[in-house]
């Protein structure tokens, strides 16, 4: 025993263990073996695997490997529970969520200790960060449940939701997913990660204790095979996944064409940018919180330190000194900064990547002290002399490893920051507000922290750009991930009753009589080309395709676009993107109104064209043109009104939720309503600042090709709208596969939906491929906020303030 007198001289920190008595008591109570929680009941432990405490390498429990039949049972339970749960008044669901939040808080320390034992993260983090945020999420979403009927009017729960979460924040990720899902009226099958299932099981217990109706929340443990059974299950309406980009991509492919709604929160290689006027001592603590928080096993960890060259040496010296004072050790010790790595496989990956970094010429630095050897520990690591071409600068290490690069100018910092396939988070350090607020929108990421890092709150959406996934968790934007327009569900049930809405629409069309050619004069030959970069362009193929009217009459020809035309169109869209995305909402509105004005001037001509194509009566054709004009006005109106939000986050500061354009988008337009369908997609996309490559109705493309002469006269900058006619499915596939296209909308036959969703997995671009036929003339289905949401992505910029 060290004496008081000795410690008085050394002034060392001693052990400060958090007791694991209650946690072990809970585990013992269950004989350290767990089944699944399905339909409000516990299955017997079966086919179990070990749960290891990574700080001691000891087995602390065994949990069951979920089978397909377990998943089937859970889905059946969730499906059975859905109608009643969804039909509950919001206030009733609010009461349940409130009860769960209270129950969580009453058991806060038990959750914190078990989480630490299961994951290896420090008790300080689980106690002060994870668990309070979990409770906060349930409280916040109890509020959304209460307000759902008014705040999300016209929307309804998606249905049965499958949720698959990672091991780095086990209970917090559960909360991020379960709370909004239940608040919105969904029922849930949740699978925690195989390394860290315990707090989810304890959570199931408190749900049981709180009396949550059976089947509303089901918890199944297991590995990737269990997850796969969920992803493949036909009765699951939505999959929410947090984890690696690799698995996310597999899920995107597996769910392609299934009609499942999908949200993915994936990997990152987030930049941590330090400008020369930053408070460097605070930057040092920021780095500690960025990359040595949770041993760097954080998807949004600032793992690329980008430092302005003039202060780089000073910052590195400060960082190294700080690293010496970090304490690593038993995660249950209340005075450690870092705990253990979750599992040997992760530790090996970190070791291997650090070795590779050195092999590739980067300089590695670690503090002089040694890690404990009784668990899976890895010391804080700092790389300098790293080039963007180094492996460690590109791949997600998911460990306590920071790589450093320098930049000369703010412009270069942005280029380096965005030089990654990912786009989850970014941290910007400067005392100059002009610089900070200039840089934040230029970084491709879903979250930006200014002079801070790793701040989270239920009120502010979290989620990525690019290959960091899509969808948001938290805030109003997060709720929409668990909602669908109510008309879709009504249509869904109509479909089940054999009344296919699309067929109905088509039938209605068929019944209409055509009035014949509006003119007896032979028409003057017109040669529609493609419209790329504001200019008419001959198709690369040198071929044309014939267009026939609904009555089978030959009407004309359009260019047969191919992949090279798509390539050219995407390049033109990129060239236009920089200016168009920065144009003011007012300026974009002016152009949309002007397009409407010019279309209006040629109203009759377009109506005649529609009639000749689709065989619509002249009255209906005129109605379609008028609806198109109105739609252009709608988005002209929205262009300067689709505001972001200022979230009420619990800091002295604000979180600015900015609606940003997605970038370059591909739009595959519906066959029906050849003009209105085209405008219904193009107008909201460009109103929000995107530039587009549109594939018009394959069957009746001439309304769109006529339209480019309207665009020509409407001051639209070249390249904002590009039109490529031709085989929709083939062209859409080229767009979906294109790495430099960031979003794709597809409104074609169901067979094409799968192709597009599958192909989109290459760069995890956002896809919107509605499985529902839309009545484009109905404003509820054909326009509005749903389109605006799909045309934007939310960036949350956290701005703490105070001098």
């Amino acid at each position: 025993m060290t004496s008081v007198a000795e410690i008085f001289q050394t002034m060392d920190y001693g052990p400060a263990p958090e007791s694991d008595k209650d946690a072990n008591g809970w585990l013992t109570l269950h004989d350290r073996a767990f089944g699944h929680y399905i339909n409000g009941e516990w299955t017997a432990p079966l086919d179990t695997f070990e749960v290891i405490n990574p700080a001691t390498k000891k087995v602390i429990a065994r949990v069951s490997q979920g089978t397909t039949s377990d998943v089937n049972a859970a889905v059946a339970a969730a499906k059975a529970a859905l109608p009643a749960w969804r039909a509950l008044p919001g206030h009733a669901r609010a009461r349940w969520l409130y009860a769960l939040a209270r129950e969580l808080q009453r058991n806060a320390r038990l959750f914190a200790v078990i989480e630490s034992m299961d994951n290896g993260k420090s008790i300080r983090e689980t106690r002060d960060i994870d668990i309070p945020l979990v409770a906060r999420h349930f409280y916040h979403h109890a509020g959304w449940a209460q307000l759902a009927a008014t705040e999300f009017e016209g929307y309804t729960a998606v249905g049965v939701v499958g949720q698959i979460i990672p091991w780095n924040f086990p209970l917090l990720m559960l909360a991020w997913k379960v709370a909004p899902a239940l608040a919105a009226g969904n029922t849930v099958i949740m699978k925690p990660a195989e390394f860290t299932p315990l707090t989810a099981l304890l959570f199931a217990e408190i749900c049981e204790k709180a009396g949550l109706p059976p089947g509303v929340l089901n918890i199944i443990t297991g590995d990737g095979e269990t997850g796969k059974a969920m992803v493949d299950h036909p009765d699951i309406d939505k999959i929410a996944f947090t984890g690696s980009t690799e698995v996310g991509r597999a899920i995107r492919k597996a769910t392609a064409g299934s009609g499942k709604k999908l949200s993915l929160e994936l990997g990152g290689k987030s930049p941590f940018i330090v400008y020369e006027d930053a408070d460097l001592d605070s930057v040092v603590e920021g780095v500690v919180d960025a990359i040595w928080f949770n041993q760097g096993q954080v998807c949004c960890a600032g793992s690329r330190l980008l430092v302005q060259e003039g202060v780089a040496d000073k910052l590195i010296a400060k960082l190294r000194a700080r690293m010496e004072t970090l304490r690593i050790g038993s995660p249950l010790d209340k005075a450690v900064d870092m705990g253990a790595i979750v599992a040997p496989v992760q530790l090996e990956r970190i070791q291997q990547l650090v070795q590779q970094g050195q092999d590739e010429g980067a300089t590695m630095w670690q503090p002089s002290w040694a890690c404990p050897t009784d668990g899976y520990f890895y010391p804080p690591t700092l790389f300098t002399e790293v080039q963007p071409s180094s492996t460690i600068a590109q791949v997600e290490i998911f460990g306590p490893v920071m790589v450093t690069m320098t930049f000369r100018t703010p412009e270069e910092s942005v280029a380096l920051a965005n030089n990654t396939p990912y786009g989850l988070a970014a941290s910007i350090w400067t005392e100059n507000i002009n610089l900070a607020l200039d840089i934040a929108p230029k970084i491709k990421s879903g979250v930006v922290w200014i002079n801070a890092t790793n701040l989270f709150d239920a009120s502010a959406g979290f989620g990525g750009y690019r290959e960091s996934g899509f969808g948001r968790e938290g805030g109003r934007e997060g709720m929409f991930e668990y909602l669908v327009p109510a008309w879709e569900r009504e249509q869904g049930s109509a479909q089940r009753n054999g009344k296919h809405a699309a067929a109905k629409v088509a039938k209605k069309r068929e019944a209409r009589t055509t009035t014949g050619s509006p003119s007896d004069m032979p028409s003057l030959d017109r040669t529609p080309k493609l419209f790329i970069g504001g200019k008419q362009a001959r198709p690369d193929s040198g071929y044309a395709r014939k267009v026939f009217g609904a009555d089978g009459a030959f009407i004309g020809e359009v260019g047969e676009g191919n992949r090279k035309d798509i390539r050219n169109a995407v390049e033109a869209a990129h060239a236009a993107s920089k200016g168009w995305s920065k144009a003011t909402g007012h300026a974009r509105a002016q152009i949309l109104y002007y397009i409407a004005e010019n279309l209006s001037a040629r109203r009759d001509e377009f109506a005649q064209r529609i009639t000749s194509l689709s065989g619509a009566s002249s009255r209906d054709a005129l109605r379609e043109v008028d609806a198109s004009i109105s739609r252009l006005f709608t988005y002209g109106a929205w262009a300067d009104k689709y505001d972001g939000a200022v979230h009420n986050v619990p800091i002295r500061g604000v979180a600015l939720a900015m609606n940003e354009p997605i970038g370059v988008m591909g739009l595959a337009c519906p066959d029906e309503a050849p003009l209105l369908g085209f405008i219904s997609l193009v107008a909201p996309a460009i109103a929000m600042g995107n530039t587009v490559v549109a594939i018009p109705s394959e069957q009746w493309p001439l309304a769109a090709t006529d339209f480019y002469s309207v665009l020509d006269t409407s001051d639209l900058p070249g390249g904002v709208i590009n039109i490529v006619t031709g085989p929709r499915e083939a062209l859409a596939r080229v767009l979906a596969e294109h790495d430099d296209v960031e979003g794709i909308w597809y409104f074609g036959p169901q067979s094409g939906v799968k192709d597009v969703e599958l192909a989109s997995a290459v760069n995890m671009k956002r896809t919107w491929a509605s499985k529902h036929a839309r009545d484009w003339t109905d404003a509820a289905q054909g326009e509005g906020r749903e389109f605006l949401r799909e045309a934007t992505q939310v960036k949350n910029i956290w701005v703490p303030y105070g001098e």
Partner: protein
Amino acid sequence: MSAKRTFETLPRSGGGTGPSRPTLVTNERPIPPTGHVERNPGMPLDLDVVRSIRVNRSAVERRAATLPTRRTVKKEWQAAWLLRAITLMDLTTLSGDDTPGNVRRLCAKARRPVRQDILEALGAQDLGIRVGAVCVYHGLVPTAVDALRGSDIPVAAVSTGFPAGLSPFEQRLEEIHASVAAGAREIDIVITRAHVLTGNWSALYDEVKAFREACGDAHMKSILATGELATLTNVARASVVAMQAGSDFIKTSTGKEGVNATLPFGIVMTRMIREYFEATGYAVGFKPAGGIRTAKQSLEFLFLMKEELGRRWLEPDLFRFGASSLLTDIERQLEHFVTGRYAAAHRHPMP
């Protein structure tokens, strides 16, 4: 900073005899010598350094919020750390109704701050536990000097028109001379806050430098009155100017401001001490004062010193608490550690 000095190699333990220079080990922070630390002579005012300082308040507050949650000491460690806190204490009485009687009582407590039975139970009876200094107004310096005679506990006098520091400059200088003449070995001066609030750094520098010269051999602690400096950036800049002007210590507060010693102030000031040390090689001390009443608060400041500046700054020549009621709370915690029972203040001799 311009007065950069070259560092010598690290002496092996003990540091030998006489003052030695600070040292720099590659890739680690330089640390002051174990033994006697050379007094900070000050340096010419370097406005480039002063004006380039940036402090981000929100980030500092986050650090302050997590520092006490990242470190803790329990059982023997807590007892030892609390004993250490006692030796770093400037036991203080600064009231209008101070009399020789209560000052003598305070001095007696300074000599024997912890009950003997508790010290013995802790095995600390041979550690020479006594407070760092006794701090009083000028008028009570002779009483305190007399009461502490033979104990080697220095008497500190608050000075220069404490607490507002707005009396005539010559009188403030004279006050220092008088207190030093009366036997004060430490002088806690107050700065003119207006110089900070108006950015008149050269006036601040000149003032502090003049005070330092007036102190002679007495060590000077410069009270910045951080609660009246408006911003953390001002606190940081005032810290640096005070050090450039030759302060031996920088001190947060008089105890009379609305906001006194807080961890954010402590973080900013200790970081500036580190910068100054790394730039010049001179180690300056830190004294948080005002509002530190509980054992837990004192531990938080000890964590701050150890984390931001290192073990060497846990010695009375580089760290002091200004406190009056803190000691009683520490005694209660020590007794609790010894007996396992919660303690009552009235069972400890009052200061």
